């Protein structure tokens, strides 16, 4: 093999990679946060809602979980704009990723909420907690604590999946890689670098989720249980 590896383009193009990675972080942090909200609300609706609402949420979850993210992104970006709702690539990316994350979070949080025992709710009633207090302290936080590892994994998976938004020209990390490799013809080197950056981002996100768990869950803070 006569190929020589050449990483010289990095000297000039590293700011592009940093900018791409930064956009990836922005897109996915927003999508994870919104997706978590959507998912939690939908999970509550799925467990405590009326039959119609439960069906609707079920249809949403099944539709999203059984179709590829790529097609969801295309529908949001190309589909909605053809119907007259013009969104920028970045907004479409966040919207599509949020919808996707929301569906998975719904299933994860539903499992958590269903694992809260009835007696806990009755005990909360006896203590005179308001509905809101019960929901927050007795249902949601303990449910979340129980399924937190799954939520964290889903968050990391979503960050990796955000590479697909490069297909609608959101200039995140993968799109940057595509651009740089078409300028330099150093595709092998470029994609190796980007793979390493994604690995680092995965580690960073795991660390972030672990830090959040320390803030949210008192028990974890005291025991220092790692993720």
């Amino acid at each position, binding site marked *: 093999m006569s190929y020589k590896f050449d990483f010289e383009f990095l000297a000039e193009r590293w700011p592009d990679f940093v900018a791409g990675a930064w956009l990836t972080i922005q897109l996915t942090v927003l999508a994870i946060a919104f997706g978590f909200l959507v998912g939690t609300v939908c999970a509550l609706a799925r467990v405590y809602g009326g039959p119609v609402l439960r069906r609707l949420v079920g249809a949403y979850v099944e*539709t999203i979980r059984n179709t590829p993210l790529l097609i*969801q992104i295309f529908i949001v970006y190309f589909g909605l*704009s053809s119907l007259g709702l013009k969104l920028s690539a970045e907004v479409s990316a966040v919207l599509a990723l949020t919808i996707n994350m929301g569906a998975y979070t719904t299933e994860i949080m539903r499992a958590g909420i269903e694992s809260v025992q009835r007696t806990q709710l009755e005990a909360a009633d006896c203590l005179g907690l308001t509905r809101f207090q019960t929901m927050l302290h007795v249902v949601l936080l303990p449910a979340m604590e129980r399924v937190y590892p799954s939520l964290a994994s889903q968050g990391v998976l979503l960050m990796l999946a955000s590479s697909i938004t490069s297909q609608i020209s959101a200039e995140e990390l993968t799109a940057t*890689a595509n651009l740089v490799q078409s300028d330099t013809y150093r595709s092998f080197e470029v994609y*190796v670098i980007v793979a390493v950056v994604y690995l680092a981002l995965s580690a960073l996100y795991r660390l972030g989720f672990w830090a959040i768990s320390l803030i949210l869950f008192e028990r974890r803070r005291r025991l220092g249980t790692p993720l």
Partner: protein
Amino acid sequence: MIQLSFNHLVYLVEAARWTILLSVIAFIGGAMVGLPIALMRVAKSKVLRGLASGYIQLIQGTPLLIVLFLSYFGLGILGYKLDPLVAAGISFTIYAAAFLGEIWRGCIEAVPKTQWEASDCLGLNSFQQYAYVILPQALRIAIPPTVGFMVQIVKNTSLASVIGFVELARAGQIVNNSTFEPFAIFTAVAAIYFVLCYPLSVAARTLERRAHAGR
């Protein structure tokens, strides 16, 4: 501009055959590499365990899209020009092996410890232990999550479209380029994926319920 017609729908459905073929390749390749990975993951040797776990962490920490680009454009530049089908097949095998390896490791570890001890007492060697005692039981545990993962494989084959392989997602883009009805077309594409994936999802759930009822 060409009007969207019934023929377009037929074209999409026909392209779905390539999606199915890719999924089958990915699953078979992933299973063939994934099983050794799973066995390495539970091996006695620290080196083997470390290698397998390193592989899994590496692949689960990089987007499949990047793996695809590496094997298609990257290897192409290095002088190994691969056909999109081959590049996609290799990438999906690498990807599926990491996930299946991890899923199956869990299944092997879920076989009760007493089974290992009992087969030890009977004087079975390692191979016999795996072949006659552990793996048959792990297989039963493994079926529901494996079927569930097949849904992920089918969905992820859509990424092969970005290296120019004409499967369902790419066919949707091609039709869209000539008719420019993205909402209708991609909804139809999504519907076809749903038809492929939903039965697998339902099967995974049913199998899981049955597996739990059995115990």
